[in-house]
């Protein structure tokens, strides 16, 4: 069995005002990837290509060992997809939708569906048009989860959910992963959700992947180092300094290739290291995007 559930190799897609440029992406089976980017960064385009809904101009996409978009019909038997622009039938009930999905997908598990109904506090006799946003998201998720797909692809599943619903959804996603053969790919603007449940993190900005790594490596690489510099000392040259903030006497370095040996290097240069702080995923994302944008702008200028 292939150990990668999703593999993008040099994938590009050009639109008049937006280009998805040379995307490489690998998602190991049994893990969750959080796909993080600002509005318009290219998250949805990437997901549509993954699902075969948009055809790439160049590059290859393999999903569950199937080539996309050519083998999408076969691949989709094992993919559960939930996105915001997916419409359920407003005048039909949730129960009707459940029957409908069950009639198509042999993997449907009624007991699991019933359990999810209870956990998500949904009723089969509810009509879709009477549901709140959060209930609709949970209903769509239920319809995807109860098929027991090998790959779940979720476009912003937690956006617009209240804290209780978010917690329920995240718990259900984690519960899927108890089975090592199942894989989840989800896009989000909420770095907190991603930081909590994801194993793999990919940042996308302006149509390019700017970083992709396993979360622990990711979080370990980034540090904020606060220094106190005596008047005659100069800032040591360190690899991976993304930003120098603070004042000239009290500089704050944001580093993306942190190594504990750097602390000694700073001290050797005459600087007193006041603190080495871990960063949240949100801080890392912002520092990452800002530094990339500034460096591309300086190249253009």
């Amino acid at each position, binding site marked *: 069995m292939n150990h990668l559930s999703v593999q993008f190799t040099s994938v590009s897609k050009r639109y008049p005002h937006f280009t998805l440029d040379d995307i490489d992406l690998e998602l190991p089976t*049994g*893990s*969750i990837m959080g796909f993080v980017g600002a509005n318009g960064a290219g998250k949805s385009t990437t997901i549509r290509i993954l699902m075969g809904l948009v055809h790439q101009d160049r590059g290859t996409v393999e999903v569950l060992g199937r080539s996309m978009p050519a083998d999408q019909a076969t691949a989709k038997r094992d993919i559960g997809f939930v996105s915001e622009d997916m419409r359920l039938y407003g005048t039909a009930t949730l129960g009707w939708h459940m029957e409908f999905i069950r009639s198509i997908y042999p993997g449907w598990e009624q007991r699991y569906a019933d359990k999810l109904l209870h956990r998500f506090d949904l009723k089969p006799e509810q009509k879709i048009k009477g549901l709140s946003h959060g209930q609709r998201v949970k209903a769509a998720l239920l319809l995807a989860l109860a098929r027991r797909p090998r790959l779940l692809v979720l476009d912003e599943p937690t956006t617009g959910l209240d804290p209780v619903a978010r*917690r329920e959804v*995240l*718990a259900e996603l*984690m*519960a899927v*992963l*108890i089975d*090592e053969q199942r894989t989840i790919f989800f896009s989000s603007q909420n770095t907190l959700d991603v*930081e*909590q*449940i*994801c*194993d*793999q993190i990919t940042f996308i900005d302006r149509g390019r992947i700017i970083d992709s790594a*396993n*979360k*622990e490596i990711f979080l370990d690489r980034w540090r904020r180092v606060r220094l106190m510099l005596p008047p005659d000392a100069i800032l040591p040259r360190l690899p991976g300094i993304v930003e120098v903030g603070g004042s000239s006497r009290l500089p704050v370095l944001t580093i993306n290739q942190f190594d504990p040996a750097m602390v000694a290097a700073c001290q050797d240069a005459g600087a007193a290291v006041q603190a080495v702080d871990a960063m949240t995923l949100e801080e890392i994302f912002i520092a990452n995007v800002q530094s990339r944008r500034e460096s591309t702008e300086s190249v253009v200028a």
Partner: protein
Amino acid sequence: MYLQIMEQVKQKVGVGDWPPGEEIPSIRAMAVALRVSVITVKRAYLELEREGVIVTQHGKGSIIAPDPGLAPRLYDRELEDHLEHAARIGNLLGLTEDDLADRLREVSARLNTDIPAKENA
């Protein structure tokens, strides 16, 4: 986040919830229960193994290290960390060793009188 998981496991060992030799949840089961990523729990278990708190047998899962001295040693290490921290702050404030010892005695005495008071209430 992995540090919090390590702390939680150590606390369970410290208070005796998880005695030496006890089987602990698998990485995936723990991740699902805590709603945190598998990779974070994996990291926590690796570090706990390095510190000798747990033992992982390949294909069999993990157990608390079969060492009866483990719980007191964990507390001892925590005490050492706190004392070090206190000593460092004492230095910053320019306290002598005797001053620092007196302060510790005061705090200890206060706690000892507080606890019976609470029990009466």
